[in-house]
Each structure stands twice: as C-alpha cells, then as structure tokens.
C-alpha cells in the first residue's frame, strides 16, 4: 500500500502548495487592488482615523489633524475654514475634495516619496504619519481678496485669483459663497450627511470652487486676447491706429441684436489710436479686429492662453471655452468676450500673467513643497512654462495699452500711487433677462516687472443692475490684492 500512500502524499503536497500560492497571490499581489476597492470599509476607516499631514499656508496650517478621543483617533480641523475651503476642500468619511483629494497620497503617508518614513514607522511600530503640503498661497493676498469680495453687499457670488506671473504660483484663490469644511469632517457621520445635503442644495452652490469651476462670458476682459491676436496675426502695435466708430452692424445681421455700440464711451471715427480703444473699451474696435484676424487666428490665440485645455493638476477645473467654426457675426461678438466664449477666473488671471511675463505663460500650481512628517522637504515644484502665448514685443505693447487704461481709462479704480499698474475691466452680458451682468477685472503690477496678476469675477451681488461695472466693483479688490503682494 505504500506506493499509493506516497501518491496521496504528493497529492496533499499539491493541495498545500495551491493554498500557499493562493494566499500569497491574495495577500501580496491582489492586496493593492483590494485596498482600492471602494467597498473596503477597512481602508476608509483606517484612513479616516489616521494622522494626516497638514496643509500649510506660510507657517500656518489651514488643515491639520488633531488627536481625538472617540472611535477615530484623529480629527481633521480647518482653522480658517471659509477663506480656504475652496483650496483645501474637505476630508470627510465618505469622500475628499480639493487638495485633500488630489494630495491624498502625501497627506495620508502613502506616497512613494514617503517610503523611508513609512519604513521607519513600521520598524519602530509607531502609527504612520502623513506628509505635509505647503501651498503657494500668499496669506496677505488671500486675506485681501477674501475681505474685498466679502465686503460687497448681499449674498456675493464671485471669485478672485492671483498668480505670480514669473512662476505660475497661485497667490490667492477665493470663491464665494463658501462653506465650513469642519462640518463635513466631523466624526458624527449622520450630521455630516445632513450638512452635505444642505450644502448641495444651498443657493449659490457653496461647494463649487468658482475660481476653477465656473465658466462665464468674460466680456471686455477678453479684449486682451483679441488685442493680442490683432498684434500677433494682423501686425498691429501699441502705436497703431485701429478701427473705431460709434456703432457697428455685424456682418450677416440686419437687426438690433447684431448692432454693436460703445454704451456712450468715446470711440471716435474711422480710425482711432489703439490706446484710446483699449482705455475706453471700444466694442466696435474689438469686434472689427476679431473679424479682421479671423476665426482661426482668434482661436489659435485663445488656445495659446490656455482656452480649451486643462492645466491645473491639483484641483478639478472646468476648461475655458473658445468655440470653433464661427461665422463673422459670431466672431465679432466673440471679440468682445460675448457669444459662446467662456472663461474661468483662473483662465483670465493666466492671460494677465502671461502678458506680465513677456508673453511666457507659466503653468499655474498650488502645491509648492511636499514635506515629510519631520518637515524634511521631499519635493519642491519647479515652475514650468506652459507655452509662449505671445511674443515679448506683443506683451510689451499690450502692457503699455493696459497701463494707459488704468492711468486714464476705465480701469482707474485699480491705480496704486507710485506703482505702474496694467488693468482691464469687463462687464459681460449674461444673455439672460433675469440674470444680471457679470463684472470682471484683470490687472497686474508693477507693470515694468510684474509680481502679481489678478482676476476678479463677480457673478452676483446685491447691486442694482445699472451700477454693475467691472471697474467699480472689481478694481478696488484687485488693487488690494496687488498691494498686499507688492508691499511685502
């Protein structure tokens, strides 16, 4: 009987080898896939009670984990919730948003750059700690932007974005209305669900980061793009004379909806100086310029500034839109930032920043440094050029026009004594009767060596319809943000 017993022994060996191999497959190769399964509550709960790294602005944390004495060991707190909620997002039991989401691997300590730290934690049997994320936000600029926007009357809906033109660093990013992420990070999950539902249904969409998520017609601030296209494609310079006129009937149209005027601003006759056209925000001029450049040239220039493109890694963003295949009437509308052209505040800040950086458009970014729990810098973001949006000559000429616009034109509310400021206002028609126009303002300063480029967008505030104007509403906010950066 020994021969079959040996066979049985071989068979049993086979069974055990199969078990060992399968266990190895399950616990080693398949472990990662299982850990990523959204139904795996173990991972969720462990992540929720872990000591996450902080999100730092300057030396101050805007999101940090503090010990908690309930079921979960750490509680996520946001010391300056309203100002920074659009950036940090919220770390909830159910999901994460904002930087809490995009930087989750670092904050939770799972990033490969934290491998050594994790190994040390494992060997010393201490709880793993997450790395911290230093953001590019300038706290003074953020404060100025938040205060300025909040000071507008009523339930404000709007956003301010400030960039450092030479690097693409996001210096300020404010969106109103905002919310308190502390409510969503609570350990009392029932209240979290209720708060989440309340915020989702709230008027004005407080969970939406308008800086990157809201696309609106940019109106006259889009004239920067039209002007750049005219200089790049049609050979205009700052000293050129451009088409003017009090009104302009768009080609292919005959009725009033195709008639463009200048709302009473002085735009002269047939030919006027470019300076005057920009300073007075002449609609007739820019509609004609857009048609002159052509649909293809306009789209090329808009795309060069980042329209129809995703460029921000750290937050969810909506791509700004410049439509293709326009006829001449639509093209004229587009030249003054109407029709289907739509931009996020971040996009308009990028246009300003590129002009302020000799035409070189830098990729915007929010995360400056990633540090280990022991505050050792693991990674520092290197500024990257997205592309050369316009030639340095065009950038210089446009800046000249925009400085004049602040000095003697519609953008004068942003003027800072002793500092040359380049700026442009915008008031865009919503296209809907019951929705008031949107006020825009973009600027950068000092014009000779810009340190900051700002875009202000006011979607809604408690202001009579007739008084809505980009310059009056947005100018002072932009000025405050620029001053906050420059005077440091």
């Amino acid at each position, binding site marked *: 009987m020994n021969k079959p017993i040996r066979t049985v022994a071989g068979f049993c060996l086979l069974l055990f080898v199969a*078990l060992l191999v399968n266990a190895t497959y399950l616990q080693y190769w398949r472990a990662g896939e299982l850990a990523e399964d959204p139904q795996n509550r*173990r991972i969720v*709960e462990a992540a929720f009670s872990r000591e996450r790294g902080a999100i730092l602005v300057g030396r101050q944390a805007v999101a940090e984990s503090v010990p908690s004495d309930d079921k979960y060991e750490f509680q996520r707190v946001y010391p300056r919730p309203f100002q920074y909620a659009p950036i940090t997002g919220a770390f909830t039991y159910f999901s994460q948003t904002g930087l809490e989401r995009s930087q989750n691997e670092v904050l939770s300590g799972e990033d490969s750059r934290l491998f050594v730290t994790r190994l040390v934690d494992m060997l010393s049997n201490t709880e793993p700690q997450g790395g911290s994320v230093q953001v590019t936000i300038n706290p003074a600029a953020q404060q100025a932007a938040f205060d300025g926007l909040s000071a507008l009357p009523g339930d404000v809906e709007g956003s301010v974005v400030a960039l450092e033109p030479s690097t693409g660093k996001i210096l300020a990013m404010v969106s109103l209305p905002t919310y308190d992420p502390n409510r969503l990070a609570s350990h009392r999950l029932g209240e979290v669900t209720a708060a989440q539902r309340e915020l989702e249904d709230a008027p004005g969409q407080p969970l939406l980061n308008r800086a990157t998520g809201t696309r609106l017609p940019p109106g006259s601030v889009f004239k920067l793009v039209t002007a750049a296209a005219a200089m790049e494609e049609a050979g205009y310079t700052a000293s050129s004379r451009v088409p003017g006129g009090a009104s302009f009937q768009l080609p292919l149209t005959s009725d009033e909806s195709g008639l463009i005027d200048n709302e009473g601003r002085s735009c002269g006759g047939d030919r006027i100086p470019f300076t005057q056209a920009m300073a007075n925000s002449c609609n007739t001029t820019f509609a004609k310029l857009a048609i002159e450049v052509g649909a293809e040239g306009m789209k090329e220039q808009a795309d060069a500034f980042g329209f129809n493109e995703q460029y921000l890694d750290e937050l969810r963003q909506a791509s700004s839109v410049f439509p293709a295949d326009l006829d001449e009437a639509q093209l004229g509308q587009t030249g003054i930032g109407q029709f289907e052209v739509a931009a996020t505040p971040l996009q308009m800040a990028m246009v300003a920043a590129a002009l302020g950086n000799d035409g070189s458009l830098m990729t915007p970014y929010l995360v400056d440094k990633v540090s280990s729990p022991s505050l050792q810098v693991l990674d520092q973001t290197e500024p990257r050029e997205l592309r050369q949006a316009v030639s340095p000559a065009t950038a210089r000429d446009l800046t000249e026009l925009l400085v004049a616009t602040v000095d003697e034109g519609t953008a004068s509310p942003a003027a800072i004594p002793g500092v040359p400021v380049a700026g442009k206002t915008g008031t865009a028609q919503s296209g809907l009767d019951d929705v008031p126009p949107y006020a825009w303002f973009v600027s950068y300063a000092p014009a000779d060596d810009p340190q900051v480029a700002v875009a202000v967008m006011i979607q809604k505030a408690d202001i009579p319809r007739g008084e809505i104007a980009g310059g009056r509403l947005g100018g002072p906010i932009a000025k405050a943000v620029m001053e906050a950066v420059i005077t440091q």
Partner: protein
Amino acid sequence: MSQTGALMGFVHRRRRGAELFLLVLALAVGIGAYAAVGLGVDGEVPVDIVGYGGWLAALVLVAHFTLRFAAPYADPVLLPVVAALNGLGLAVIHRLDLAKEAAGKPHDYAQQQLIWMTLGVALFVGTVALVRDHRVLQRFTYTSGLGAVVLLLLPLVPGLGYRNFGAQIWIRVGPFSFQPGELAKVLLVVAVAGYLVLHRDALALAGRRLLFLDLPRGRDLGPILMMWGLSLGILVFQRDLGSSLLFFGLFLVMLYVATERAGWPVVGLLLFSAGALAAYQLFGHVRNRVNIWLDPMAYIDQTPGSGQLVEGLFGMGWGGLIGRGFGEGRPDRIPVAESDFIIAAIGEELGLTGVMAVLLLYGLIVERALRTALICRDGFGKLVATGLAAVFALQVFVVVGGVTGLIPLTGLTTPFLSYGGSSLVANWVIIALVARISDQARRPPPDLSPEAAGTGDDDATQVVKLR
C-alpha cells in the same frame, strides 16, 4: 509487509525529550500570542495570563506525560504542532472576544473554547490510554459505520437538530449545541478502513481493463455507490457542501490506497463531477456559492451574499505580508470570524507570514500522519492513518481554499483554530489515534531472533497483543 525488511536494523528512538522541548516552543506561541493580544488591544498583558498560561501548560503537559507512559514511541512532532495551533486559535478567539466587548456585545468564546480544549485533551488521554493497540478498532468496523450514519442523521431528527448558517448539521441538547458530523468523520475512517482491509483484494483484483484503466467490477461498486449516496444525502438534506466533499474525498483516498488502483479515484471523480453538476443544476444554494466564488464583489449586499467572504478577502489583503498586528486590524468586521473564517482573521493581523506558518503546521500534521501510514506494519493501521491524514488535508484545503477564494466556499471548521467544541474534540481524538498508530509503527519489533522464537523474523508469527 515488505518494508519491514528494508527498515531492519533501524530502530526508532522515543524522542520524548525532543517533544517536550518542542512543546515549550508551542506554549511560547500560544501564551505569547495571548499576551500579544492583550498588549495590542488593551495595551497591557492580560491580568489572567498566569492562570491562563498555567492551564494551557498543564493541559499540554498532561497530554505529553500520557504519551510518555502510554505511547512512548509516538511521533514526537504531532503534539507540539497541535498545541501550537490550539494555543494560537485560543488567542485569536480571545482577540475577537475583545473586539466584540469593545462593540458592546461581550462574548467569552475563548473561555468556552478552553473548556472544550480541556475536554479534547481528556479525550486524547482517554483514547491513548484505552486503545492500547489500534487494531482492536478493526473489530468495530460495522459498529463504527452504523454510529457514523446515526450521528450524521441526528441533525435531521425533528426537535433535536436545527439549522444554523443555512446548514442543518447541528443538534442541541439543553444548552449545548454540537455538530455530530465532526465525530462521525472519525468513526467513518475506522469503518471504511475496517471494510477495505477485508475486501481490498476483491476490489483490487477483479475487474476489466478499459483503455489504460483497470475498472472495478460492477458488484464491487456497492460500497462506493453507498458512500456517494451518503455524501449526496448530506449535500441535499443538510445542505452541507463541505462535509459532503470531505466524506467523499476521504473515501476515494482510502479506496485508492487500499486497492492500489487508479481506476477507483477516476470512477469516484466522475461520480463526484456528476453529483456536483447535478447539484449545481438542481440546488439554488450550490449555484449561489459558485456564482459568489466567480465574482464575490457582485454579491456583497445580497442575502445570502458574499459579505463574509469579501470582508475576509479585504482583511487578508489589508494584512499584507506581515499583518497589522494584534489589535490593529478589524477582524471583527468579518461576520462569525471565530468560526470558519478564523484564517482570515489570522491573515489580517498576522499577515501572510502567519497564514503560511499555520498552513505549514497543518502540512506537518498531514506529513507526520502519512509517514506513520508508511511505516505502519498492518494494513488497517495504514488505512486509518492515511484516512485521518486525508481528512486533515482535505478539510484544511476546503476551508482555507474557500476563505481565500481558491475554490467555492463551503462551510467547514479550521481544525484546532476555529471556535467550536465538536470540531476541537474530534480533532484531538484524531491526533490521539495517529499518535497511537505511530507508537505501534515506531516501536521496535519484539525480539523474534531465532534464539528467542526459533522461527525467524516472520511477520506471520509476530506477537500481537490485542488487550
């Protein structure tokens, strides 16, 4: 038997000292794990560590000294391996108790399991002390068979049996519940071994050759068909896939070893496949198990669904290579983890390392039992030892394979680890039987030199003491 000639001149040593040393290591595993659970969960060594450790040590030492006096040549590896597994199982059950206590549902499964272990060791001692020679069991071939069938039928008796987790394999007497099937498998091994050792020649030699296989005669198919019917009956009436598979597999292995003919397993496998296919077509619960096995994630929220299996998989995945450590995992997320799914709890907190260690310990038990079968001098002993080894190997394969997703999940306990008295007690008896057979097998043959007996070392005249 022929191999005794080859083994002439080699005399097994008793190795009881080695066993004692290994037992100290096994106790270190058991008591160390218990302390680690306390440290991991509560941050302190459990207050009852001395009493607990002392009791565990006392049980193990009693078993050791029983072997020392009643079966001095018994295999010295078996008892330490079993002690380590049982100790580890107790610690993990204690760990799960603490998790339930934290959730406000206190349990004292570990304490109950320790009581069952005490009973198990008592039965171990009783078996080793009373069965002085395993061959006496051959007399109880048909009694055992009848006993096994009766035990298997008990849960179907109205008022006595009850259904738990979908399977009707439990009986309840007063406050105690018991799975008679666990003891039935021991009796079944004895019955089948007794039957086969008598009829193996008929089964082995008669038959006709078809292609490459020697197929058995039709009339000899009786017992195999009976076992097939019994297995199917368990599957149909008790809805117990695991036991059904176990009994039939066990029978095939023993039949193959007894007859030395590969035709039997082939016929058996065909029968099994036919039965399995029919069961899949006919019974919703079988189909359900297979569907869950193919795609566990799709059935998480259903009833009966795969929630337990998937939680086990998540836990084992989370445990990774070295595990989270006692108190750092969430094995309590797995429903009734202390029973069939205890290997998943081990995988979560002790990692792949722990799972592999446990599997190797099981492998060691199977290896020792098969080695015993190889060196055993009588056919009955060989068959019993092989059968018990097969029970172990198949049971571990079915339950661990099911929990880790290798094969469809069928409910079976993990020997010596799972909470559950019937299983623990039955397994201690199995180890006692293997120890007894190995003692007989390793014992030096009686002095049959010509001067002593005058007829040479002929097996036929070997003195066999039956009482």
